[in-house]
């Protein structure tokens, strides 16, 4: 499945969030990640995030079982990191 994840967390936890998300997903822009992920990896990611965030922080994850009826559009620059071909 495919997920889009974004977060708004306290300054002290920003870099931790960035590191954890980078293990599972592709960076798109500040505080936004996306990518294919397996069900079990998503659970692992959620549990890692759960250990970082505090009550006042917010993380939103959109989960798509399939992308058939979706379209990705970018206005301006696409900052998404290329990870397939380096």
């Amino acid at each position, binding site marked *: 499945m495919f997920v889009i994840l974004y977060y708004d967390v306290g300054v002290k936890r920003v870099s931790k969030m960035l590191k954890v998300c980078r293990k*599972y997903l592709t960076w798109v822009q500040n505080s936004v990640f996306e990518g*294919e992920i397996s069900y079990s990896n998503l659970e692992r990611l959620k549990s890692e995030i759960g250990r970082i965030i505090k009550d006042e922080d917010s993380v939103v994850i959109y989960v798509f079982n399939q992308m058939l009826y979706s379209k990705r559009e970018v206005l301006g620059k696409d900052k998404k990191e*290329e990870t397939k071909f*380096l």
Partner: protein
Amino acid sequence: MKETIYIFSAGTLKREDNSLVFITEENQKKHIPVENLKEIFVFGEVNLNKRLIEFLSKKEIMISFFNHYGFYVGSFYPREHYNSGFMILKQAQYYIDNEKRIYIAKKIVEGAARNSLKILRYYKNRGRKLDNHISEIEKNVEKIFRIEEIPKLMQVEGKIKKIYYESFNEIINSSGFKFTKRGRRPPIDRINALISFSNSLIYSIVLREIYATHLDPRIGYLHSTNFRRFSLNLDIAEIFKPIIGDRTIFSVINKNIIGVKDFEKSLNRVFLNDRGKRKFIEILEKRLNETVKLRKIGRNVSYRTLIRMELYKLEKHLLEDEVYEPLIMEW
């Protein structure tokens, strides 16, 4: 489904914050999501260290290296995680016993030939003159069943391959591509360059799937086992070369995805440049991720999964659970 990544640029691959980064020569950092990774193909000049290798091993990620021409150099095959002494002994037992060995070897040659015939019939139905090639291959397939020694089997296999490759000139309709004869080292024309590159990739892909099973990649049946090199992946690749590799070759040429400009020549060697390699990989990956419906499972599975399932069929043969019959394309 975990991903494969391909590194063409020069730079350093390293472990950082429990994940992977690739640092380019321009000092740009590219982050690679390690938890979603299953293998890395390296084409460029990449530096790496033992710390990285240890990390890849822990994460069960295989890394394969290719030289400038796209030829396979070798792989880092991480520490086995599906170790079964019982299965390895069975594998060896079926290798040592000539009758048992030749049964598997014959089935591999037969599977490869029948899948090649499927391709030829497909193009025959689209008006290509392939009647002679088809009937010649069929005649040789008949011979397989009477063979009792590996060298003889290799001869017939070679004959089938030769006829099959000659048919490529009928299938490919592009003036820039003419097949002369199969020459591996070095590839002597563009079609040979594509075949060699495609085979190199498929060998590594099959090797990665073997890693996900209980089989030992060093013991093959058609290709003799010598302990310097993997051979089981060469065996299983035979069945998938026509289905995955050759169909990709025809589609990149006939749909003008890859053209004359994607090749380079040095001395008498023809090979794909980086742009050509990349385009080929993109189409090959699409093919690998394409799915077909399997009645026994009742679900769609990808071609990559079909490779793993082919290995499981071999395991079941070794366990005397089900007699091995190779995958013959039906769709």
